């Protein structure tokens, strides 16, 4: 097997990442939480999310809240190294081998695993899932349903992009080995399989309860009441509009869950979630508002940070003068004091960004042009470009808090002040995030400089800079075929190691072109009551609750 490459077991992130809650931080409050959960084990873990899930069939989901629930119910072939974003054999495959050309991938499967409906997990089930995805009826291929498959596997057996599909076939070799063949290499293939959308689902349950050809496969009995996976929790009930109730799955192959039950409730406002935690109505919640962090910690609550796996940037629209002038772009880059942006508007622990992806992603280059804060240089460049004192349009969103952009109004305000400092006049243009802002930034040329960002789905370089600069987009307003070509070639390298040097070069190139200014990698936080321990935060939100215990 000298031609094959063994899986790269990532140990890099272990030291850096794995943030595991340790017991009771000096709590000033009595913990009366948990609805009867006392001592070791048992109890109900009450968690507040920002919205309801859309679908409990993860293949038809692309939102974080659906994935949060499906991570408890389902597992994929490939897992994630705890505390990192790196793929690891912690999922349903114990190891895998990829051929040198990157076209065939053979997975050795975990034995003794059963789905919640009692059926057995084996190689047939794996091939059933891969074939199901590939043969999706055309009505269900649309991006609002099967976004991730369309984006990562190129296309389906039928439909517009059938010729771009990279999936070829799946073959079983006994019960415990499955081989996937691709039509062309995809360096992010293994990492992509760690996405919840590609989790293994029970073939028998799918056949009985799911109808992929239904008008809307997210409202079928399967997707609302009968999802069946191999994870440590099974669905008890989804009371739509109220909560999702999960119970521990007794026959789980791995570490059995300590808690008996988990309930996920939607509370839209970060402030409302904080208040619910304070009132002991929940045990924990995600997406803590930056302003709440200090207060919660002081009051004895635990605030847990995820390693940032995101980037917040200030984008330029080169289709509009004066941003087509590299000097203006450079001037703005020099005018921004990123340290101040981080300290004044982002949660503590956030890091300054120098390129369009976090350092933990492969292909990150440490020697890109960084444009360190230099207001005099900025003034001089503006003078040279002849735009000193001009008014520029600055777009930012309202009514939104994203993990990579917790308080856009504050961030806007800091940068605005800095730009005015070097002699630019700012015309603020605000839009509601959903959908006005995205419409304007990504769907029209009617914007100037703007705030936006991205949270990575899994550890893949293409998922960052390929996503941003892989083709001509109204957001950036430039057409650079050479860059597009370079990104496409890197994506088609057979493995991550082959692609990394290409991506490093591309990162240097991007920072020379300066399509935008990467600002920061903001830290996303979760908060928990004093009685919660064992919650393992993950940069890619691969958080499974079987390790959680309640006092």
């Amino acid at each position: 097997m000298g031609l094959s490459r063994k899986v790269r077991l990532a140990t890099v992130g272990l030291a850096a990442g794995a943030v595991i809650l340790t017991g009771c931080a000096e709590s000033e409050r009595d913990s009366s939480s948990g609805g009867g959960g006392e001592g070791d084990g048992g109890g109900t873990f009450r968690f507040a999310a920002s919205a309801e899930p859309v679908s409990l069939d993860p293949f038809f989901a692309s939102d974080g809240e659906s994935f949060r629930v499906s991570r408890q119910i389902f597992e994929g072939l490939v897992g994630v190294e705890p505390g990192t974003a790196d793929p690891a054999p912690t999922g349903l495959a114990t190891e895998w081998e990829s051929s040198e050309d990157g076209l065939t991938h053979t997975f050795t499967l975990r034995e003794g695993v059963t789905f919640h409906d009692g059926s057995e997990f084996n190689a047939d089930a794996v091939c059933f899932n891969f074939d199901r995805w590939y043969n999706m009826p055309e009505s269900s291929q649309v991006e609002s349903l099967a976004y991730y498959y369309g984006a990562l596997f190129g296309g389906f057996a039928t439909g517009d992009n059938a010729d771009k599909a990279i999936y070829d076939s799946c073959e079983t070799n006994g019960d415990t080995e499955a081989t996937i063949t691709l039509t062309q290499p995809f360096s992010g293939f293994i990492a992509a399989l760690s996405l919840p959308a590609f989790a293994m689902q029970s073939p028998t349950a799918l056949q009985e309860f799911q109808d992929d050809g239904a008008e809307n496969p997210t409202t079928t009995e399967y997707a609302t009441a009968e999802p069946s996976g191999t994870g440590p929790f099974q669905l008890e009930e989804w009371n739509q509009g109220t909560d999702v109730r999960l119970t521990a799955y007794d026959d789980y192959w791995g570490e059995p869950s300590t808690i008996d039950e988990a309930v996920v409730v939607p509370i839209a406002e970060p402030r409302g979630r904080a208040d619910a935690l304070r009132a002991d109505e929940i045990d924990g919640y995600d997406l803590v508002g930056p302003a709440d962090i200090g207060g919660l910690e002081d009051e004895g609550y635990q605030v847990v940070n995820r390693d940032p796996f995101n980037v917040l940037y200030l984008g330029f629209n080169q289709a509009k003068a004066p941003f087509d002038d590299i000097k203006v772009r450079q001037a703005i880059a020099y005018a921004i004091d990123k340290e101040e942006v981080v300290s004044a508007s982002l949660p503590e622990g956030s890091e300054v960004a120098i390129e369009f992806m976090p350092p933990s992603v492969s292909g990150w280059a440490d020697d890109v042009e960084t444009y360190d804060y230099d207001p005099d240089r900025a003034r001089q460049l503006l003078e040279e470009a002849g735009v000193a004192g001009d008014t520029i349009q600055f777009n930012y969103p309202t009514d939104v808090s994203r993990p990579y952009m917790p308080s856009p109004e504050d961030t806007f305000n800091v940068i605005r002040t800095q730009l005015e400092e070097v002699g630019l006049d700012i015309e603020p243009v605000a839009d509601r995030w959903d959908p006005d802002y995205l419409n304007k930034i990504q769907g029209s040329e009617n914007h100037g400089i703007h705030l936006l960002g991205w949270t990575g789905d899994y550890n893949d370089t293409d998922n960052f800079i390929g996503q941003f600069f892989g083709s001509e987009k109204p957001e950036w307003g430039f057409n650079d075929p050479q860059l597009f070509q370079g990104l496409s070639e890197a994506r088609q390298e057979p493995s991550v190691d082959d692609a990394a040097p290409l991506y490093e070069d591309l990162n240097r190139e991007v920072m020379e072109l300066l399509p935008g200014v990467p600002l920061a990698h903001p830290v996303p936080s979760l908060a928990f009551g004093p009685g919660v321990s064992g919650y393992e935060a993950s940069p890619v939100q691969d958080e499974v609750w079987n390790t959680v215990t309640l006092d």
Partner: protein
Amino acid sequence: MTIPLPPSGGGAVSAETAPGTPGAAGPGTSDEDRGVSLWRGAFRRLRRNPTAIVGAVIVLAFILVALLAPLLTGYEPGAAQDAGEITPSSVPGPSEDHWLGLDSFGSDLWTQLVYGARQSLIYGVVSTAIGLAVGTAMGALAGGFGAVGGRVGQWVDTAVMRVVDIWLSIPSLLLAVSIAAILTQSAYAVMIAIGAAQVPIFARLLRGSMLAQGRSDYVLAASALGLRKRRIVMSHVLPNSVGPTIVQATLNLATAIIEVAALSYLGLGTADPAVAEWGRMLVAAQDRFDESPQLAIYPGVAIAITALGFTLFGEALREALDPRTRR
């Protein structure tokens, strides 16, 4: 089946006709019976009403602060000159330079409050003017035709009021939100949105009081004397129905100021986050409520007091103009 239509329809307004406040039960002499002196009499009654005086003082103070804002502070509004001193969980409190401290964007809080009065005044007046203009036009159309009567008159009245009914059946905030969404985020959008929500209130009110006037004795007498109905409507009914409308406009100023805050709360305010506008300030501060409650409390109280001032004054004006209080 007739139902006494209260001239109410939105937010802070009510159908109250409170008679007999002690101070107002005064003179009932002959010169007051003439329509001309209605306003003079009203003013006299206003002066004796403590509620009116408190309301008037608040309203006057508010207008003065709004007009004289630049004299009351040395800073520019929305300047965010100290943005760097703000962190996500702390805001500098009162200091020598800033006696109320900074706001969450690094502007001087006192400056923001003072200039906020100006914004509220502009928003309130413009949006109420929009609601008043469109609403009274519709109300006058329906009421005028309704009072003239006849088949055409009835038809126009019904048609216009049907539109008003539909308008009213859409919750006002929802209407405002959708208008703000269509016009994108700007100060104009907020004003138009709030004005639009007031239209049916004015339309109903004016029509109601015109119809009531149309049935009153003097109109019946005038038409018995052979005056043309159209003429009666134009020269008597309409002018006599203006009083309640003015009262309503005063009350709606209060509602408008609160609604601006509500739109800001829902993320539909003006484009500039650091703008000196009370609703916007209140919203920006609510995330920091635990650390710096003053950031939310000052603008919140400012809104409440101003709205209270307009409400008090409007109510007192209503009492003063109500002919029944002249008994």
